[in-house]
């Protein structure tokens, strides 16, 4: 690992100042929350920062706070604390379930929500240091190589899948991200935070160099909201999603008033399914409707050579997740 300086600011304003000063002095700056992804990337020399600004000492950003129009979650909350929080479990089950399905207990104890959303892709070409689009090159090696786990939606020129479990949950919950940077503060809806490779193949989101994802704001949810997160792994624990589904249903008794269905593991961004959402609105969920929704979910899938199996997997995943909400016959 290359030698680096570590800085531990106590508040966000100080953190942003340190980041800006480092950049002005022509030093490469990395930002760490729990550091569980960054440390591994530094050891593998995928990133070689001169300065690591570690946010762990920043006060007050690891809380869930209830506001009158919703809930604010600090970006530094650990995935473990997030998944165990009573308010999140009760009102935003999809987020609690997504957080508790990440990696392993050891990682969830240190990894933060903001870090989970900003982790770099886990494509094996990128992580093994190939000079691909994500590593400053001009090729996506998965296209003609090993691509079992790559994108079936929204791919090109890079075919990575977005690795975060919490990202589809937050898009499904219509969350807003509060971003703090050298030029001040801005708010971005979760769905617009993540960007396709056509925008910039080297990046996965709108975060600019030196910006910090500070807080996530969730709108208030009616008590009748039902939500869940289902994840398929390729062993029983500690893999990213092969396919996952975040479903949030605003219910009026047994009828769906409005739906959000967002997939993980299948596209370079959390992949919303507006056609499926429209299909569910105003309906009672039945096994037949769930099957129809599963078919509609994969209507636009474009698999590369080795991942045709992800299409039936996605169809069956959507079908099963929705069927879980079917009223007992």
């Amino acid at each position, binding site marked *: 690992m290359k030698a680096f300086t570590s800085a531990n600011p106590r508040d966000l304003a100080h953190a942003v100042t340190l980041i800006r000063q480092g950049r002005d002095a022509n030093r490469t700056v990395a930002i760490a929350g729990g550091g569980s992804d960054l440390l591994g990337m530094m050891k593998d020399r995928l990133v070689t920062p001169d300065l690591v600004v570690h946010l762990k000492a920043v006060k007050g950003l690891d809380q869930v706070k209830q506001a009158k129009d919703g809930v604010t979650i600090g970006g530094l909350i650990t995935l473990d604390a997030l998944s165990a929080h009573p308010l999140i479990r009760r009102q935003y089950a999809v987020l609690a379930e997504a957080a508790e399905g990440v990696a392993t207990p050891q990682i969830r104890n240190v990894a933060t929500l903001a870090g989970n959303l900003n982790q770099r892709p886990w494509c094996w070409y990128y992580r093994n240091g190939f000079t691909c689009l994500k590593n400053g090159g001009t090729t996506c090696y998965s296209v003609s190589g090993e691509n079992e786990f790559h994108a079936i939606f929204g791919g090109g020129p890079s075919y990575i899948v977005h690795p975060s479990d919490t990202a589809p949950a937050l898009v499904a919950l219509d969350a807003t991200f509060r971003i703090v940077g050298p030029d001040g503060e801005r708010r971005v809806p979760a769905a617009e935070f993540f960007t396709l490779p056509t925008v910039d193949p080297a990046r996965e989101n709108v975060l600019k160099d030196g910006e910090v994802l500070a807080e996530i704001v969730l709108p208030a949810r009616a008590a009748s909201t039902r939500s869940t997160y289902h994840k398929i792994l390729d062993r029983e624990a500690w893999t990213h999603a092969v396919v996952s589904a975040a479903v949030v249903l605003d219910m009026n008794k047994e009828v769906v008033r409005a739906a959000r269905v967002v997939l993980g593991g299948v596209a370079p961004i959390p992949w919303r399914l507006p056609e499926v959402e429209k299909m569910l609105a105003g309906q009672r969920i039945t096994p037949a409707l769930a099957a129809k929704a599963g078919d509609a979910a994969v209507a636009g899938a474009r698999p590369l050579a080795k991942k045709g199996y992800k299409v039936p*997997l996605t169809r069956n995943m959507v079908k*099963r997740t929705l069927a879980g909400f079917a009223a007992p016959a």
Partner: protein
Amino acid sequence: MPKGDDVLIGTATPNPTVQGKVRSTFGAHFVEVEVDTDLGRAHVTKYVAVHDCGRIINPLTARSQIRGGAQMGIGMALHEDLLYDRRSGTPLTAGYYGARISTHLDAPEIDVIFIESDDGLGPFGAKSMGESSKVPAPAAVANAVANAIGVRMKDLPITRDKIVAALAARTGARS
């Protein structure tokens, strides 16, 4: 076999034959799997390993040794894989994360039964054990998967993509 106050002397040789005889160790494994045909997940629900390793000197560590080998075989059967980039030869799935080795949640309860044969040739009546339990494990898991879904898998690991594709091919052939 030794009795009472007998003094025991062990010997070892790189050519373990006595009077032209070879000591062999034997094992048979019995596996129950559950396969989710929609999502292609295969999961071992019950596992029994029966071994003849001669006299068992330390039952606790002997059982653990058999369980460890069987667990390696289950991982090899269901998810461990080392993929290479064909242009450069670089391994793509190295390491604990990449190679998909078994986690605690992948480990089923493994019952171990020893049949302590007495061929009298080994030290204290013992025979070799090593990772002999890894040998039958992948075949036993693969047999159980074939028994569950009616399609025989011919290469390891038997991952979700292969199960889903095999079942789709079978359904396609019928319709």
